């Protein structure tokens, strides 16, 4: 089997308090085997580098238009990008005075990355935090991950993987698993058809991989926490949550985390100039009652819901 591709890093979110224990740095990898319609990190779906434009910080200087050799940019009320002409040279990003234009996806060596992450190690150590690998789907790049995780463990940094579960188990088990301290495992839709429809791929591998990881956890392996994004009308239905709850119960899983819908994702879609397939997306936050109703589905079958 050939080696996995070199990843692009979209962002390193430092000082994150919500992506695992303690103070953490979250690494967002670019590229994902799924394409969930509600994806909160749409900039991380495609594997290739992209141009992002934030109209709210643009000062209309026109520097980008001047810098573009391909004539791909024109400035009206906001900047219009002709993606057909754009060759992704990013001269416009260098010219932009306000940072409204930015490049999504940087190639970084493991060494560079570890040096950057180690800067915050004193915070990790004092808070019980560490590094969280997220994306996109980090397991797209298992060779790189293996090297990165080993380097992090050499620095005694706690490692957490957030995954959609769509990976080849043997490779994962060999390259990634030994260097992890904690796994956050997304379960979205129980019905294979629905999963295919909304997430762009089947869920058999995902469920199988989860069962195996959970078994290993029970056997003293890495702790695995299943997490369910609550997407109004798609994943938060009683049927879906009930099926997942039964699945967890059946396999002896005792706790789960629910991730309430965050409507802010749409702004990111706009910045990338993408057109969402999820046209019915709500722009409201979920109410506490809605969240509690979802949690009750799990509590009824004695699966703890973490705050």
């Amino acid at each position: 089997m050939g080696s996995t591709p070199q990843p692009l890093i979209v962002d390193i979110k430092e000082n994150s308090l919500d992506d695992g224990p303690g103070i953490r740095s979250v690494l967002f990898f670019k590229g994902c085997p799924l394409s969930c319609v509600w994806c909160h990190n749409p900039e991380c779906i495609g594997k290739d580098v992209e141009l992002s434009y934030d109209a709210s910080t643009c000062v209309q200087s026109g520097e980008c238009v001047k810098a573009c050799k391909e004539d791909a940019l024109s400035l009206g009320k906001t900047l219009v990008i002709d993606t057909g002409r754009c060759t992704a040279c990013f001269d416009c990003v260098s010219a932009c005075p306000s940072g409204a234009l930015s490049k999504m996806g940087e190639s970084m060596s493991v060494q560079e990355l570890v040096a950057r992450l180690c800067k915050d190690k004193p915070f990790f150590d004092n808070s019980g935090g560490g590094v969280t690998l997220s994306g996109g789907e980090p397991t797209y790049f298992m060779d790189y991950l293996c090297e990165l995780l080993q380097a992090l463990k050499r620095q005694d940094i706690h490692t957490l993987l957030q995954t959609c579960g769509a990976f080849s188990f043997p490779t994962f088990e060999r390259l990634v698993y030994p260097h992890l301290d904690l796994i956050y495992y997304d379960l979205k839709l129980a019905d294979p058809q629905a999963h295919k429809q909304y997430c762009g791929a089947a869920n058999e591998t995902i469920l199988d991989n989860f069962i195996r990881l959970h078994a290993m956890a029970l056997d003293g392996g890495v702790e695995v926490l299943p997490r369910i994004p609550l997407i109004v009308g798609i994943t938060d239905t009683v049927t879906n949550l009930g099926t997942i709850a039964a699945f967890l119960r059946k396999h002896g899983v005792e706790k789960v985390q629910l991730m309430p819908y965050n409507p802010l994702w749409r702004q990111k879609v706009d910045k990338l100039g993408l057109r969402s397939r999820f046209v019915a997306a709500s722009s409201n936050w979920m109410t506490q009652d809605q969240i509690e109703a979802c949690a009750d589905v799990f509590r009824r079958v004695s699966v703890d819901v973490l705050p």
Partner: protein
Amino acid sequence: MTTASVLLTSLSQVSMEKLFVGRNRLNFVTRALLQLMALQYNTRPSLRSYLKGRDGWIDFSVGIMTETGGVEQSISFVGGRVKARSSIPDDVDVTLRFVDEDALFTMIRATPNEVLLLILNNKLIPEGNWAYLQLFNYLVALLLGRAHQRMLDKAARDEHQSRKEACDPCDPDVLKELQARTAYRMRGHKTDPGVHYLEDPYLSEYSLSDFPRLEAFLDDHLEKKPEVCSERPLLITQWFREHGFENDHTGQPWDPVARQGKVFKHLMSQKTPVVRQADLLPGTTTTQPTTGSVVFPDAQGTMIWGELDSIDKRLLIPFDITRETAQTLHHDVFPFWSKRNFREWARSKYGDRPSQNLGERGVAYFVWKLVGISHTIPDFRGLLSKGTRGLISDLVDTLDDPALKDEESRVTYQAQIECLQGVNAYAAHLAAHAANEASQEPDPERKQELEEIARVCAHVPQHPARTLHEALTAIWIAWVALHNENADTGLSLGRLDQLLQPYFEADLLKLPSNSSRQAYIERAIELAGCFFMRCTDHFPLSPDLGNYLFGGASSTQALTLGGVTPNGQDGVSDMTYIFLKVTEMLSIRDVNVNARFKPGVNSDAYLSRVCEVNFITAGTPSMHNDDAVFAALRPHGYDLEDIRDWSATGCVEPTITGKHMAHTGSILMNLVAGFEMTLNNGRHPLIRGHAGPSTGDVSSGDFETFEDFFAAYATQQGHLIGLAVELNNHLAEVHAQFRPTPLLSALMGGTLQSGRDVTRGGAQFNSSGTSNIGLADVTDSLLAIKKLVFDDKRVSFAQLKRALDTNFEEDPALKALAEHGVPHFGSGDEEALAMANRVLSLVHDMYGKHENYRGGPYTVGFWSMSQHVAYGNLSGALPSGRLAYKAFTPGLTPHPSASKSFLNNILDVARLTPEHMDNNMAFNVKLVPDARDGREKTVSTMRSYVKTYFEQGGMQIQFNVVTADTLRDAMAHPENYRGLLVRISGYNAYFVTLNKQIQLELIERAEYGL
């Protein structure tokens, strides 16, 4: 309504175009107004009576002129006759110099607070004796009568309306979130080696409702205005009238030390003893049981002369004042002092020096010695262990020593003895008063308390303290006395947890049963709470101008907790946690609580508790790293035991407890002023004219390299520092020669050996502390010039200068580039950090060239009180992209846009060189709690930030744990937030008492989620 007020108010309704088409017309109107004033005062006996003081007619004159030359008028008051003239006599007492006709016109129509803004913006420059300016203002206010009142009322209404409009409708839940914070309290465990009795050191079982008397005191404190008290000024003025000020009754010049000793003894012997209802600690700084304001006419007290009629109605921090007090101050007190105060003494000796003139323009620097010098910490250890009798006996022994020949020492010791006798007399009066109250008290429980109070203050401070109650009473009585000697400017309490722990333990040892010990612990909390509430009993009497310069600042009495003992052991004790509990429950602005932390020695449990108290109170205590402060103090050559015994003074500044006359708040220096002068070849846009030397013209290409520019900045800022130091040293001489402080000297280590007053260098250690404001803004601006103009050559210096002169209006792209295209201090960029350290080092070295009046060094700090707002409001656009008149960042806090990650801010600030910040710093961080998180997680995150910052070398950090939404709601609905505590930059204030600009700065500060 008077004819004058009809005319004046009608003026305010006429448009400028109609009335003032030319300069001559305005000159004519000014003369007409002054003539009208003269007529009124000459003909109406009720008004004329105000021209007479206890010592006769008050003679003075006031000139009014414009710099443009169109107006020159004056009015003189001589022998009870008032005359207006079309010229200004050479010996005029004070002249109001207006920049132009517009400014004068504005003044005629303006409300009093708008006039202050004219002064702040350098459009109106008062020259000469300010006391007479204030007197003139008072006479104008009397003339305007109710019209003046209506103007004030309207200004207040407009302001409240504008505050409401500045805030979007807010989520009502923000108030609930804040209120809910006290409901849950973490439990602690006995882990600190110095904690011997508290099983749960966090004292989580107690809440304010367990202490009804504290609850009532707090409510009083938040509801009642401080009241101006005439007792001290009247008593000392009467004494001086009888015994002379310059010369004694034999006509011999007074030795000022001897004179101050005698007047102080008289004052304390005559002072009214007050025991507040239900209080456990006797004595008050004024005659007011809740909050009073001591007037210091010998310092800057006459600055409120103009407000005697309106101070109770002013917009910001009004004071109550009785008609009788106003009359007393006007007739009996202020006329005696109009030429006898710090500022006038300096003017009479040195004339109107450039250092004084520039200082008074408010743009470049402010020198606190105009107000006071006692920004230090007395030796309470000596007081408690020896009592005043022991201290007196030491002084007598030294006096009796045949080897003592030096007359100054003799006078100094004698004055100190008299001061201590005065304190004893006051304590005896308190004891008698409490006993008398006890005899009339029907409630047996209170009767017993009063009897105990009488017994306690019959014993202390004369004798050594034996119990916690005695120790706190002795400190409090000394505190009252010190605040009657010297204006309340940051006199600080030191390490009371260290000092009081032995008394706490001694009390407990006498108690055999568990239940009696529990009851005692509750009583100890209550006593410490009473002490805190007593410390808020005085509030500095600030003229309205002070509200715009130092918004909401109280006396700022710093208390220091934790850290290590002089021999390096863990200094956290039961009393540390008791004071933390009181801090949490009361959440008051003053006492200003500072928590020391020694990495590797103090526990995580202690730091967690400090963080939890910050969370509950939203803004206190401020936190300090012993390692960094030690490193900062070491180059001064103090013994390690002394360094380990440092305490915060005023805001944050380190002082060696009890033996160090450090006046740590001497100079508040604007680092941006020198920067603007560098950009303008020695001119300051607001000051007009040359404020500094010519160092090169930006637009003519005089700066070939960045180093050329940096050197020019060093010259300009060094020039300002030199002037500020000169003014500070002149004023230090005033304190030494005009108003020494023998009581403070008696309570300061080193004076017994030196035989000198503390104002004359008598303390064991001497220094003067400065605060330098705008470090981050100057650093980022230097970085922008270096990178954009010189390194990358993306813009010419001339283009950048044009953009600054137009406030970036014509070049928004350049502003964006300066903000986003240049790594700022706080971003984690090495070059940016190096630049910050370079500026730090430059400022430190510039002060290093100077010595203070008392022979000590200048120390250098980077906190800002509220001056980052005041100075920001007077400064133009900066190359960093900061727009004109916006606040600088508080203290030395990095700009919010420096980094997306707050951790980079922490790491950069932690790597600033501590040796260059020997007067400490303020790193302000606004944290926003996540309502979904539990208390433990929130506190753990806060502790992780602080602990890491300290381990990486950071010196000081302070939090505001409050959201912008909450602050906006408080701005619009102050009635719901009367006690909302915020940390400005070093000190605490109640948000609702702040001027609007400071409120907006706090709202706009970057916030980081928890």
